[in-house]
């Protein structure tokens, strides 16, 4: 198997065993980016020198017989451009931060560097992570490697496309309403939103602070678990960081791979079906549930009635927090400044800069948030949304009292065409229908590919949800399912991505 088509675990074993150098592995991925990214547009910035220097350090350790820094030392990774990293630009997909370099590393970046993970560059995203298609990037959309006319999901479409295009074996995403899981679903890759508070938000440019959570993206469940253990853990620089041990996700992924799920109780969320769901998505989901049953799991239907109100609650809470968080882009301390010609005062410069620097979706959400938080409307909108959040958490609590994990399709449809929903915000928002509840309640959730839709031959994702700090439960189920799926479908789904050479 070529270097770029290997898993992260395979690459790590080869690098640590001296069979291949980390520099060769990094170079193979940099070459791949050079040859295909013009058509995919997954990367906003490629850090060739930094990647090769980080790889060289791992090779030096191996050559000197020193222990490697972590099980993923030397493995390349694509970092979503919402996490700051010294020596690289951070744009968040926005014109307002074009050319800005952070003076410090995010905790996730620091942990990756300390683990010897080779950061190839920064990936494209919907502006400030607001979107489900990566079309809201100020730097052009990312294209889905399965069909370049289609979206790679969002907001982390750069990270998911980089994986599916074999430009990187690992990536980091952030998930506020589904921005890791939905891109994973539509690109046939694995995306994990860990329990809220388990991966530090320090240096993650804030969109909606009570919902934002960084997590691992990969092409296999085990690779995601290995990355999860590198980035997760308590951090006193994040006041919402959970001071508890990281759940044993790698051990769970290995246990799951043995293919036995007897004794595991799986709940199918009855709300996530029916109108708006493509037949091919539902068929793939039902086949996946049948496979879980064959692996020994006990499957029951579970009703979570308040999940129907998750999307409206989310589109009040997230914009409200965003309107406050994005107030920091005031043209004074960093980023773009427009109209500073001596005739405009500070407030005018602020307003001109924000109008020029923010895209349409960001403006819409700032205004929705401003509206929802204004005194006359607070109770009806933001206050009610917070109550719905309580009801959703109660539905999860009741469900997890009877089942170990919940499952649903990750998103109601396969990848839609670029441009198809861009003028219809409500249609775009529906992509996050199934993923939002876990952000509102803070529990763990992930997407694992379940096959290709019979409708259009595009990837479908199976969402697995677990209680807070029980992330290992979903990894076990996902790993068992992955083995069964590959056996049933004649090999890993991801190897069926069309060739991209020659773009």
């Amino acid at each position, binding site marked *: 198997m070529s270097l770029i088509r290997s898993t992260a675990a395979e690459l790590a074993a080869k690098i640590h065993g001296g069979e291949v150098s980390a520099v060769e592995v990094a170079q193979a991925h940099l070459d791949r980016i050079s040859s295909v990214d013009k058509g995919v547009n997954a990367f906003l910035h490629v850090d060739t020198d930094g990647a090769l220097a980080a790889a060289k350090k791992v090779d030096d350790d191996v050559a000197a017989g020193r222990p490697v820094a972590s099980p993923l030392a030397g493995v390349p990774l694509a970092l979503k451009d919402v996490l700051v990293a010294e020596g690289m630009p951070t744009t968040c997909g926005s014109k307002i931060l074009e050319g800005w370099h952070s003076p410090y590393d995010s905790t996730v970046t620091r942990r990756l560097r300390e683990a010897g993970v080779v950061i190839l560059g920064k990936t494209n995203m919907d502006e400030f992570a607001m979107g489900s298609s990566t079309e809201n990037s100020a730097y052009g959309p990312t294209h889905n490697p399965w069909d370049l006319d289609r979206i790679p999901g969002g907001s982390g479409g750069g990270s998911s496309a980089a994986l599916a295009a074999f430009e990187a074996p690992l990536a980091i995403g952030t998930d506020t309403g589904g921005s890791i899981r939905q891109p994973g679903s539509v690109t046939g890759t694995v995306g994990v939103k860990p329990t809220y*508070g388990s991966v530090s938000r320090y240096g993650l440019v804030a969109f909606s602070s009570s919902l934002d959570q960084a997590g691992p993206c990969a092409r296999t469940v085990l690779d995601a678990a290995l990355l999860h253990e590198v980035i997760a853990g308590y951090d006193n620089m994040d006041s919402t960081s959970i001071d508890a041990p990281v759940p044993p996700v790698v051990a769970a992924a290995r246990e799951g791979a043995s293919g036995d799920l007897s004794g595991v109780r799986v709940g199918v969320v009855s709300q996530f079906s029916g109108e708006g769901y493509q037949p091919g998505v539902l068929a793939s989901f039902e086949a996946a549930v049948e496979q879980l049953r064959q692996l020994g799991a006990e499957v029951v239907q579970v009703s979570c009635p308040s999940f129907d109100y998750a999307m409206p609650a989310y589109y009040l809470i997230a914009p409200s927090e965003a309107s406050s968080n994005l107030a920091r882009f005031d043209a004074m301390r960093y980023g773009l400044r427009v109209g500073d010609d001596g005739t405009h005062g*500070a407030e005018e410069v602020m307003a001109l800069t924000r109008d020029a620097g923010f895209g349409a979706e960001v403006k*819409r959400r700032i205004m929705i948030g401003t509206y929802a938080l204004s005194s006359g409307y607070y109770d009806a909108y933001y206050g009610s949304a917070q109550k719905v959040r309580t009801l959703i958490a109660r539905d999860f609590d009741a469900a997890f009292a009877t089942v170990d994990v919940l499952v649903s399709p990750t998103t109601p449809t396969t990848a839609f065409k670029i441009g198809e929903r861009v003028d219809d915000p409500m249609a775009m928002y529906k992509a996050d229908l199934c993923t939002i509840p876990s952000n509102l309640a803070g529990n763990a959730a992930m997407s694992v590919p379940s096959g290709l839709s019979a409708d259009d031959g595009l990837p479908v994702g199976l969402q697995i949800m677990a209680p807070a700090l029980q992330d290992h439960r979903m990894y076990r189920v996902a790993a068992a399912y992955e083995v069964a799926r590959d056996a049933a479908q004649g090999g890993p789904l991801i190897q069926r991505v069309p060739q991209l050479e020659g773009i």
Partner: protein
Amino acid sequence: MPSISRDEVAHLARLARLAVTDDELDLFAGQLDVILQSVSAVGDIATADIPPTSHAVPLTNVFREDVVRPSLGQAKTLAGAPAAEDGRFRVPRILGEEA
């Protein structure tokens, strides 16, 4: 059901310091109305007896030890500034605007 006028959108844009154009106002007025109509569904189930949740993980009073730590320093802090002068952020005038 909510209905948001073009004037209200202009007011929101002013509050949010967004110097939106007339064309943007026309576009946003229609879109915000549709979005607000949809999200107002939260009122259907949010009864008075339900407590609000602001964070998934209830944490209060998280403190770090009160010790001196290295900071970024002046050069790094100003490196990303849109304009700097004499080692400080240079900003447009803040006085002389309408209230």
